[in-house]
């Protein structure tokens, strides 16, 4: 580390899609570090409350695809992270072993100006918190939709794989949104919702309008004020799927 630049080490796990980073800052003592979790899928540690010390993004590839979804990750880190994620996913595409996917780990190091890693001063309005009853209804409807999709029997193996993955993501979303992180209030999970949207494909046992409705409802999950409407949509879709399979 020099006066102006610091070394930033990034690590990406393409299997679980988790990106983490560590900045080689001089230690300022434990009391000086501030941990911030803007949502259930991201965590940032600020040294002295000012400079990025480390961070973690869950479902990073889906999240990095959207410029707005990475905040408060310093903007200078986004292209470096995207490059690492893309390279890692391309390299992993050649392997079809699940264990290889689980063990795969890509790392990169870069030097960035310290000033670019400063915490942005953003005046945020207090994040709206959804009513407990709405949260429970949302979680239940997501889990029900997950089960309804999982029960569909696609024709070929690739469709089975997509269906399994999608229903697993819906289940993860149901639990994550309902409980947030351990010890915190329920909250949004923009990484998981973005990954679920990205996993929506024609191979799923859904009609075109159903897919569109699902995509819109998944987008609504990023705003707790829309959770009631999203919950109703998931419930309706689950009913339709259950009806069609019975």
């Amino acid at each position, binding site marked *: 580390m020099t006066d102006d630049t610091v070394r930033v080490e990034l690590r990406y796990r393409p299997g*679980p899609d988790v990106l983490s980073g560590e900045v080689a800052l001089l230690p300022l003592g434990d009391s000086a570090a501030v941990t911030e979790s803007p949502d259930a899928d991201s965590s940032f540690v600020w040294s002295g409350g000012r400079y990025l010390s480390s961070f973690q993004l869950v479902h990073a590839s889906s999240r990095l695809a959207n410029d707005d979804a990475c905040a408060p990750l310093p903007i200078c880190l986004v292209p470096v992270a995207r490059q690492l994620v893309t390279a890692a996913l391309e390299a992993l595409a050649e392997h079809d072993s699940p264990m290889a996917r689980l063990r795969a780990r890509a790392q990169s190091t870069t030097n960035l100006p310290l000033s670019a890693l400063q915490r942005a001063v953003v005046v945020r309005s207090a994040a709206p918190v959804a009513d407990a009853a709405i949260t429970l209804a949302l979680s239940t409807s997501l889990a029900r939709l997950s089960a309804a999709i999982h029960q569909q029997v696609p024709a070929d193996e690739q469709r089975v794989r997509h269906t399994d993955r999608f229903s697993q993501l819906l289940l993860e979303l149901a639990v994550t949104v309902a409980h947030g992180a351990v010890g915190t209030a329920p909250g949004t999970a923009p990484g998981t919702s973005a990954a679920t949207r990205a996993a929506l494909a024609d191979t799923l046992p859904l009609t075109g309008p159903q897919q569109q409705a699902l995509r819109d409802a998944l987008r609504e999950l990023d705003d707790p004020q829309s959770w009631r409407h999203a919950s109703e949509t998931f419930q309706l879709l689950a009913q339709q799927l259950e009806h069609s399979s019975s």
Partner: protein
Amino acid sequence: MTDTPSTARLTANEEAYVMAVFREVARIAARSRRGFDADDIAGDVALAVADQPAAIMAGYPDPVCYARQRARHAGISFDRRERSQRGEGARLLLGPDGLQHPGRRYLSADAAGPDGGKGPIVHLADHGSLLEVVVTERLATGGLLHRCFAGLSAVEVHEVWLIDGCGYTVQELAASCGQRRETVSRRLNRARTVIRQNHAAMSSELELSG
């Protein structure tokens, strides 16, 4: 860390389960850990699940529930391993000069401290360590640590400090003083109990006076 290659074959469903466990453990660990620790802990848990996915999935159909059950213990195991590695000098830490140094910050045996080596902590501390200065100042100004050690012999204080303060393992300490691991462990447990009692008494005194 050395990974032993596994020959296990995961189905698509098992793979999705393992990845979901990884993500949830990473989420939990990131709340209290820094740097790559959360990633390392999540990796350990996920590999353990991948070794016997069917049995775990039968007991815990929901990967998030399983991850929440495992995260705490996984963190403790991770810390133990890190401490053990520090004891072997395997881990490098970033020093105040921005360079990497061996993880063990303290000198063992009878090395003299900066002021000639008086007291159980200064006696063992590395001259250049920032942490040592902080600890010494706290010790000198407050005397709180000495009150916590009341009733313990010098040997017990040394052992508590070496293990809980410096990261040595019980096994290392037992080997260095030519005793059985169980003997050191028993003495350590007794010392910790006394410290907890002293600390509780001191806290209640402070509450009463405050």
